[in-house]
């Protein structure tokens, strides 16, 4: 069953603007990860936030986690055309399972 669900499904912004993507999940988690996928390529790990963390930063990325609402958000500040990609959240592994469960992703387009 699907765990992560990203919102919106697609987002189009201008260069320099901020982009916010949200992820909701259903069951309790130990951590949540965000990945980026350029068109036709594999995924690249961006950031991991643990269940006892509320916010994490990495360069222009800011991730928040609200375990009471079972949701996370990814903010990309001062976006660039090179940020154009699909962004996925992934939950797990947990409970002895080594598996990650991915959402359907948000397709971000940054227009120059």
């Amino acid at each position, binding site marked *: 069953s699907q765990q992560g669900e990203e919102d919106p499904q697609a987002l189009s912004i201008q260069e320099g603007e901020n982009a916010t993507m949200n992820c909701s999940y259903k069951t309790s988690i130990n951590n949540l990860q965000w990945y980026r996928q350029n068109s036709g390529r594999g*995924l690249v790990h961006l950031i991991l936030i643990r269940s006892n963390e509320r916010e994490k930063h990495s360069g222009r990325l800011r991730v928040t986690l609200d375990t009471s609402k079972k949701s996370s958000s990814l903010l990309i500040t001062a976006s660039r055309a090179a940020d154009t990609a699909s962004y*996925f959240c992934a939950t797990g592994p947990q409970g002895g399972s080594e598996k990650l469960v991915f959402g359907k992703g948000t397709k971000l387009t940054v227009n120059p």
Partner: protein
Amino acid sequence: EADIYQTPRYLVIGTGKKITLECSQTMGHDKMYWYQQDPGMELHLIHYSYGVNSTEKGDLSSESTVSRIRTEHFPLTLESARPSHTSQYLCASSDLQAFSYEQYFGPGTRLTVT
């Protein structure tokens, strides 16, 4: 860029053919995974391995098989390709000893079965 490689990158093949998708990593990771991804959709785990001689089926039922004879190599085989197998196949690996849970992905193989 992660040191994980997939070949071929693109494959167009007729129905009934046997194919093997190759995946190799040079990071010495114990854990390896195969995902299937249709365009614009989420990834579905079809196989994974904890190490040499370990293979497990994932969440999505798949007619493919895998083997893990060497740590660095995790090929996926379809004995008889069908149009329903048309998809992108992504290989990934992670370090069993690390607690970062980060998975490193290859560039993918886009398979089209005609």
